[in-house]
């Protein structure tokens, strides 16, 4: 079905996509038009994730879509994967976050660091949406400094015992399995960080919804407590070794976020244009005034730049040439750009812009979280600074 949302394509970037990439984007776009847009405002107000969408997302093949078909995934290239993230976030960041966590933060590490048995067991179940995952790295006192985490995994004669607390965990209360990152050695040794697959019904595992969010309201964000959680030996992701393993997951997720942000920005821009052409003030549509035209011109310019960043980043990823620093640049730029576009749309819409009936303020509030998670804007600034100068300014 042809989608009703026509996107934003000022530079004919569609012409740089393959027929399959466009077909995939249009399918997800139609699905978001039909199933996300009509319900998301209400879920946002209620503070609930639309769980009823999970089976359809799985059937479309949205979970871990860039992982191999041998594990029940769609086996898409990374540009197609990015376009999926773009369209999901065009609906809502909470929906895109759900898919990012499931795919890039849980299925990806299982695929990358797991044993063949772990892959065979978990990936098809997760691709089909029967198993939902979450990624537990961040702790109450260790956000931008994940290497300092204090969750510990002690080896016993028949397995592992985990103790610690995690925070800001997307899907935490929904998940059936958590990828928990813990230190197996001394607390000052980030090299001893390992990933563990923890079924959430294991005794000692508890998750609690983090109430009071004014952002990402259509998303499950939870605290997790691990108290003497006993796991079998094979709960360990055998190839996860040191801080670089969770950081690789974050690179995979940030890649999708760079695309997602463009989706949110496109949703806002299209809303702004529609409003500017129809809202009459001082006897003519406000789009006829220079101040609003300046807003719209700025938005279109920045969105177009963001689209081209993503596309080239995706082509590099598909060629195996993408660096984490390039991902930092795209995540940093595009999320800040989308936040600006959402804010300017909110303002262009005047008083109407604060209503849930319009999308801008929901996207704006969401993007404030996206600005902060998966490496804050500032952390990415320092990653680029280090890349440029060779000097570490983190501490």
């Amino acid at each position: 079905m042809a989608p009703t949302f026509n996107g934003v394509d000022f530079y004919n970037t569609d012409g740089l996509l393959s027929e399959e990439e466009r077909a995939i984007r249009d399918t997800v776009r139609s699905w978001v038009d039909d199933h996300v847009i009509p319900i998301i405002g209400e879920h946002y107000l209620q503070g609930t994730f639309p769980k009823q969408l999970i089976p359809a997302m799985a059937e479309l093949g949205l979970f871990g879509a860039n992982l191999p078909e041998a594990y029940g995934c769609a086996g898409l290239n990374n540009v197609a994967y990015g376009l999926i993230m773009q369209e999901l976030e065009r609906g809502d960041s909470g929906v895109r976050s759900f898919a990012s966590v499931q795919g890039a933060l849980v299925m990806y590490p299982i695929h990358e660091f797991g044993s063949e048995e772990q892959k065979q067991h978990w990936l098809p179940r997760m691709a089909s949406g029967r198993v939902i995952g979450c990624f537990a790295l961040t702790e109450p006192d260790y956000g931008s400094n994940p290497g300092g985490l204090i969750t510990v995994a002690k080896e016993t004669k028949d397995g592992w015992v985990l103790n610690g607390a995690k925070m800001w965990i997307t899907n935490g209360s929904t998940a059936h399995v958590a990828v928990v990152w813990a230190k197996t050695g001394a607390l000052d040794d980030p090299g001893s960080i390992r990933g563990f697959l923890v079924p959430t019904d294991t005794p000692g595992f508890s998750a609690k919804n983090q109430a009071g969010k004014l952002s990402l309201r259509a998303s499950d964000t939870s605290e997790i407590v691990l108290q003497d959680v006993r796991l079998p030996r094979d709960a360990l992701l055998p190839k996860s070794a040191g801080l670089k393993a969770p950081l690789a997951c974050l690179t995979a997720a940030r890649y999708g976020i760079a695309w997602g942000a463009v989706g949110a920005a496109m949703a806002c821009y299209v809303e702004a244009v529609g409003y500017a052409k129809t809202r009459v003030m001082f006897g003519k549509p406000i789009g006829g005034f220079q101040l609003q035209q300046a807003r719209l011109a700025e938005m279109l310019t920045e969105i177009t730049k963001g689209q081209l960043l993503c596309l080239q980043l995706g082509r590099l990823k598909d060629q195996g040439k993408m660096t984490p620093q390039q991902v930092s640049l795209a995540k940093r730029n595009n999320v800040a750009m989308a936040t600006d576009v959402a804010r300017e749309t909110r303002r262009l819409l005047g008083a109407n812009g604060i209503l849930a009936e319009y999308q801008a303020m929901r996207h704006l509030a969401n993007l404030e979280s996206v600005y902060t998670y998966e490496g804050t804007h500032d952390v990415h600034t320092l990653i680029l600074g280090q890349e440029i100068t060779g000097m570490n300014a983190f501490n």
Partner: protein
Amino acid sequence: MRIAVCIKRLPDSETRVKIAPDGKSLDETGVKFVLNPYDEFAVEEALRRREQAGAGEVVVFSLGPAAAQETIRSALAMGADRGVLLQVDRMPADGLVVARALAAELKDGAFDLILFGKLAIDDYNHQVGPMVAELLGLPCVTSVSRLEIADGKGVAEREIEGGIEVCEFPLPAVLTVDKGLNEPRYPALKGIMAAKKKPMEIKPTPLGVGDVEIVALTLPPERKEGKIVGEGPAAVLELVRLLREEAKIL
């Protein structure tokens, strides 16, 4: 069950169309082309029949330019088994020319059902399905909104003015289908990837001579700006006067 579905590539109805300088065709620059929405119901119905039967083949046919391969592939992505493109340089204005080419292709296909959308949303002709049925000497039911098939026979419902008509017909048959028959599926991402590996035959197709020619294409006249004649009960008299004297509808 062997099912043929005939589909058409046409401009997306969201497109703002421009008329080409010749005054009788569309300017296709920047126009997005899609699968005719009514044909989506036909593809979906064919897939469901095949799935219910547990066996069979769904073959998609389209007469169109080389770019219609993409349209055929969107039907393959939904789940059709293979596609045939009757490739032409230009779309004929006369539905009978299209119908003759399709009928020639379909006649030896041994299909149990040949499905069409009830109309193409670009020309609104409702022609090609019934013409193909006639050329093949097959029964035809148009605008089908409900369908049951069993034991070599079909029962179809069509929405007619003020009611529902129920028709019985033997197979093979040609049906044109309406909205409401089903809810077309989204092509799954795996389906989209699989579509490019499915067989597609491309047959350059010489067109017969038609009797219908498009001589002009014009956009509907722009609506004139409305007029507010006044407010409150005082305006009623003026409104009635204008409806009578200016609009001449009272």
